[in-house]
């Protein structure tokens, strides 16, 4: 549940910061949320990536629907994605997502100390208990 909240917060904060800051504000948003809410590097990457990916892909998708893909088709030949609008939506999401994910991972490394290694065999059992 907390993970979903974190993902939602990354997306929401990305949106708010994006109103004032350049595109890389998604990294700032993911970084900030991860500082407070990430459990480990992988978890951090996951919330950063997913939060930004969902925000960008969903936003781009909505714009594309309203535009009936007039522009995305043209751009998707330029980029080159064979004019595939949905692929362009996904690529947008992934590019933003990777930036978000990496920034969130940084934040996690900043907050956590070198903790003892997990018992890998029981890691997921503990986590979802």
């Amino acid at each position, binding site marked *: 549940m907390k993970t979903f909240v974190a993902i939602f917060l990354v997306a929401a904060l990305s*949106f708010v910061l*994006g*109103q004032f800051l*350049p*595109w*890389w504000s*998604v*990294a700032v948003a993911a970084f900030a949320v991860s500082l407070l809410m990430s459990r480990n*590097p992988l978890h951090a990457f996951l919330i950063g990536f997913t939060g930004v990916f969902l925000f*960008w892909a969903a*936003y*781009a998708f909505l*714009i*594309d629907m*309203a*535009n*009936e893909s*007039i*522009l*995305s*088709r*043209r*751009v*998707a*030949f*330029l*980029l080159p994605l064979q*004019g595939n609008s949905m692929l362009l939506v996904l*690529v*947008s999401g992934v*590019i*933003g997502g*990777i*930036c978000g994910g*990496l*920034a969130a*991972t*940084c934040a996690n*490394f*900043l*907050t*956590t*100390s*070198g903790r003892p290694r997990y018992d890998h065999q029981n890691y997921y059992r503990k986590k979802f208990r």
Partner: protein
Amino acid sequence: MRLLPFIFTSSLTLGLIYLLSNPVGEKIPMAIGGFLSPQHGFWRNAEPVNYDFNGEFRIDGLKDRVEIFLDERLVPHIFAQNDEDLYAAQGYVHARFRFFQMDLQTRAAAGRASEFAGPVAVDFDKSQRRLGMVYAAENALVEMEKDPQSKKLYDAYTRGVNAYLASLSPEEWPLEYKLLNVEPEPWSNLKTALFLKMMAKMLTGSTDNDLGYTLAKKIFTGAEFDRIYQVIPDSLRPIIPRGTPFAPPGIIPVKPASADSMYLGGFLPVVVEEPNRPNPSNGSNNWALSGSRTQSGAPILANDPHLELSLPSIWFEIQLTGPSGTSYGASLPGSPFVISGFNDHIAWGITNAQRDVKDYYQITFKDSKKDAWQYNGSWQPTQLRIEEIKVKGGAKVMDTVAYTAFGPVMFDASFPDKGLPTENLAVRWTGHDGSNEGLTFYKLNRAKNYDEYVDAIAHFTCPGQNFIFASKSGDIAIWQQGKFPARWEKQGLYVMPGADDSYKWQGFIPQKENPHALNPARGFLESANQRPVDATYPYYIPGSYITARSISIEQKLDTMQKAGVEDMRKLLSNTDNITARAVKPVFEKYVREKQLSETARRYLQVFRKWDTHANAESEGQTVYQIWMDSLKTAIWQDDITRVKPKAPMPDEQLTVELLLRDTASVFYDDRSTPVRENLADVLTTALNRASDRLAQSEREGKLQWAKYKSPAIYHLLKDALPSFARRDLPVGGFGNTINAVTVSHGPSWRMIVHLTSQTEAYAVYPAGQNGNPGSKFYDNFVDTWVKGELYKVSVMKKTDPELNQKWRVTLNP
């Protein structure tokens, strides 16, 4: 804190952000991160198809409220209380829908294309600066701002453009700025002047061929030259109907005593091939029928300027209603006013005059510093203009342009190519002279009758235009208007000696003696870039005239007795190839069938069956055109390539008349063979050669004319954005048919105005009102244009604003 992983991932993150914030490469210059962000990048330019254009907007300096109604084609209908507000609003809508285009075109005009395009544009920029484009615009600006009324209107236009631009955040900038990773720049009156100079260069930049003729002079004798260049065709239908008397000349230029020996004879300066020549087929059609020839008894006027077709178009449709009435038609983003259109009383249209208004003089510099030149027996100082060309993604390039009494030195040891020898050539161009062309359109937009039209166009200097006119009171008229040098025979046909003032222009043809006609007995007037007058006109007027279309227009108008709008519509998209019609019997009679290859014989059959119409599906037209091109090469190539770079190809009409008149001309002979070829030989050789090309096209499934020609309308950034273009359009026609669609060039605006008491008008252009490639209004007129159809234009009245008003934009002070 886990230091090492943190350092590693944070450098990875920052590195990625850095990478995504910078251009990827030459082909894709945008910064991907920002470009793909739905809040910042191209997604922001994806305009919802049901976008609501309603809104209120503030422009500082407005005197009153301005109301703009956008109709369902996104044509703005502007209602303002005073002229200043009217043109501020025009600036606003131009900027709102076309700002990138305006910025790009005026930067290119000023020789600053490299700021957007990078190092590839440096040579283009140099040629612009060496032609003196900014110098020309500065001279124009002085004239434009000298008249306080004009200055107010240009200021208002600039204010409107900049108010819109200032309201945009970078995320809202036009898409192209994001693609190119560059920034917009505010508008100024100088940019309006630069825009008009861009038009002047576009329309007069290749109507002279001084360098080419200088080369031709080296291979042809004087007599030969006169037989193939600047010949008045027998088939000419001049703009001014034959038999119209001309006043005796007000100025008689005197040929210098030395001309025969020093200029026409032995003077053979070394010249280069002129770089960046505008498209020589920048032509147009216009015509006007008086009431005697129309069904309704009211005049009809039509106009279709042929220019490079682009997305967005050079034109923008608009209605301007102010205290002095309404004008409606095509405007040019970059300039206030309606350029081709109509008002409550008259209609007007424009075609290019094609006159030579640019000459070159050979000058001698004292040394490589270029700060002194030899003139009238002594060393005179030049004015050096240091040109700094900023280059995107590269170091800035410096160039020095020397200005002489003639004008800027365009070509010298450092341009166009350091490796090629050339003389120093100074250029004299009427475009350099200060003028206020906008005043013509300001007045035309308000003119009520013939006299006011004549008064309006008198201000027009460069580029020379054929202004056609029709009024509700029943008059039709045409003037070829511009500032044209009064030349002695052959003055400025070649590069001239510039060591003294004896070869300079001695004056200009008095404006009142410009060719004109009013209400001719035949009941119609037309112009289609042909020579304006026959040989009885008392001045020497070289130019790059186009003959075929005007013959075609006159043939058709001659037979019309009760013409209506539908006849005009059909005429605008007429593809009757009269050149082919004239030469087809000669081709068929003289080609030696027995000497043709089997393939060639097959294409000859296609040609024989052809109805000489260049419509989209026609295969005969493809055969004809490739055969004709091959024939022109067979006749002329051996002659004109005797010098390097090659001399100009003679005009097509000259070749046509040669074919009709002479079966044994010396020009048919191929100099590279020992035998003497005649017409039958060249025709046969040409078809045999053409058949290879034809067979290849046929294999590719491109024998039909439109498929072979493959017309396309590109985005302004051309090949960089192929997916932003409309390609493979099924349109017929060619440069010699009334529907003059070549590959990416043709009728850029079509208009028909029927001057009944309630004006009935139709218009179309091959693009859309919104320059944004993310808008459904980007290319929505293209299909209508392809079909040869026009939209019925709705002139709105304030009293019936519900008519067609889809959206309403209010501009407040």
